[in-house]
């Protein structure tokens, strides 16, 4: 039995619902209050069991400011990330287009290492205003090696799946590394 610890960067444009997603996940589905701007980083810590093992992953979720203003501060706070959760708003095409920029910024913090990641399209409850196609997002995510999810934080739908996926990927990475350590001697 092992408990891993992962620094999870939660990134994306302002107002896509990063904080709402993190808080919903932390509280197991208790609704979050009104919108407040995140300055710098808020930390959410939660332990996620890895299915079919006795193991778990403690996620240290760095809920990060989407505003450009805080960009420089993030460079320091994002040092040595382990996993990435990239969020966009399915009704806001610009927020989807920004994902490439966010991905690049986080990956620059972990040169030469594999960085497990998920792409999360939020606000699926606003079906009539959808501007980003699921297939389009899926195709881009696949090309970037990210697992793709859609959620509605408002309807409290599928908000756990992305984090469980990250925990699973990180656990898999640990197993692979330990196997490699065995072959060294």
């Amino acid at each position, binding site marked *: 039995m092992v408990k891993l610890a992962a*620094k999870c960067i939660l990134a994306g444009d302002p107002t896509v619902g990063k904080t709402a997603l993190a808080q919903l996940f932390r509280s197991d589905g208790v609704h979050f209050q009104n919108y407040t701007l995140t300055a710098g980083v808020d930390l959410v810590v939660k332990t996620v069991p890895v299915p079919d093992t006795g193991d778990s992953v403690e996620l240290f979720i760095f809920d990060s400011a989407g505003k450009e203003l805080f960009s420089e501060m993030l460079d320091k706070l994002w040092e040595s990330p382990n996993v990435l959760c990239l969020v966009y708003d399915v009704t806001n095409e610009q927020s989807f287009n920004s994902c490439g920029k966010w991905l690049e910024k986080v990956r620059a913090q972990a040169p030469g290492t594999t960085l497990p990641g998920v792409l999360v399209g939020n606000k699926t409850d606003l079906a009539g205003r959808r501007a980003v196609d699921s297939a389009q997002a899926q195709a881009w995510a696949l090309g970037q090696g990210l697992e793709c999810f859609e959620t509605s934080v408002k309807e409290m739908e599928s908000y756990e799946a992305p984090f469980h996926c990250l925990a699973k990927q990180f656990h898999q*990475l640990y197993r692979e590394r330990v196997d490699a*350590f065995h072959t060294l001697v």
Partner: protein
Amino acid sequence: MRQFDLCLSSEGSEVVLATSSDEKHPPENIIDGNPETFWTTTGMFPQEFIICFHKHVKVEKLIIQSYLVRTLKIEKTKSKEPVDFERWIERDFVHTEGQLQNEEILVHDGYCTYLRFIITKAFDHFISVHCVSAEGLVVSNHS
């Protein structure tokens, strides 16, 4: 005054603290004298472990076998308890793809009862430490 590996658990040394523990790869593996067994870290850095000699020793050379360690800091104390550690050594390791890092460090002023090893940076998400040995002398059998 014979020279031997002061770190060996068979000589009475002990790992009294480690910040990671996978029960399959426990910190005791670091001082069992067998490089095939190892301790793994299980997440974010820094990570550390403390070796207790249960006696006063004078370390003259340290040998560390590890993988994917980037920066290692070593602190020491002469106290009876693991407190009042002072900075001692800091090393940047080289990335050795597919083989163990084998770092030999000749040291000065190696009088201590405990050694604290802090891995502050790594080349990947996880690292392994296979062996730490310390050549030197036993100064006194009381700690």
